[in-house]
């Protein structure tokens, strides 16, 4: 290995780092939306970009803050949904089973089937 080789390796690693870090900044402007459904029926869709406190029916309250969603209040006995990890643009769901509420992240665009590469 010569000195030039090490420079090459360093350049490649830096490029990889840039490609890894840049999308993280841009992902702050995703058009992901929060989809709330009760008993399988759509209750409402909210953009992740704007902070909001959403009352879901009379039973639950969820909060959108800093691109992530968390259930803040629920009248159910076990409060499992409050303990669930907050969800963000990378996906995930929060479920409140007693009240049959599902919070999930959907992409702003309609989902298309993934392409298949072999």
């Amino acid at each position, binding site marked *: *290995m*010569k000195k*030039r*080789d090490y420079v*090459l*390796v360093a350049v*490649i*690693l830096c*490029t*990889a*780092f840039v*490609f*890894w870090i840049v*999308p993280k900044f841009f992902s702050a402007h995703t058009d992901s939306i929060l989809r709330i459904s009760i008993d399988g029926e759509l209750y409402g869709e909210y953009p992740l970009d704007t902070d909001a406190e959403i009352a879901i029916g009379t039973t639950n309250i969820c909060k959108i803050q800093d691109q992530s969603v968390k259930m803040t209040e629920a009248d159910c006995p076990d409060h499992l949904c409050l303990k669930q990890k907050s969800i963000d643009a990378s996906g995930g769901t929060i479920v409140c089973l007693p009240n049959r509420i599902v919070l999930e992240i959907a992409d702003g665009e309609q989902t298309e089937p993934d*392409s298949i*590469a*072999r």
Partner: protein
Amino acid sequence: MVSRQSLTPLPADKRIVRMKRKTAYLGLFTAVAIIFGYVETLLPVVVGIPGVKIGLANLVTVFVLYIYTWKEALIVSVMRILVTGFLFGNLFSILFSLTGGLLSLLIMAFLKRKEFSIIGVSIAGGVAHNIGQIIIAALVVENVKMYYYMPVLLVSGLITGGCIGVVSQELLRRLTPILGITD
């Protein structure tokens, strides 16, 4: 002190012997590259990331690039891609391999002149191969978001290219005297 070769032109019969030997070797290397490519499909994916493979066939390309020139490496590489593509793949896989292989060879031939060591050349080749494939993938899928996959492929190209480089270095050192290419 002038070297023998530059002093007297090579006799015609010796040139013919050399050419015959080269033809045979290039055929042999192409065959080895095809076998390597096939053997690799039998190996399980070690790292668990789809699309990441060692690139054993690239070993032959690097080796040929160093014992001959980029022209011979180009012949072996393209022949290998076409044969494996028609045997095991389809036109799409040929397109993918060809883009990766050609870009890789182009970069390697360029860096070889710029006094990089064989390991550096091989690393650049591995990385260029992956970049070529991701560009084609982005064009085919028409989705620029393929660049999310870029860091993974850059680093994996670096590692696999490095491995191939080390092995090529050893191969060159041990095989060149046996093959009798220089005489």
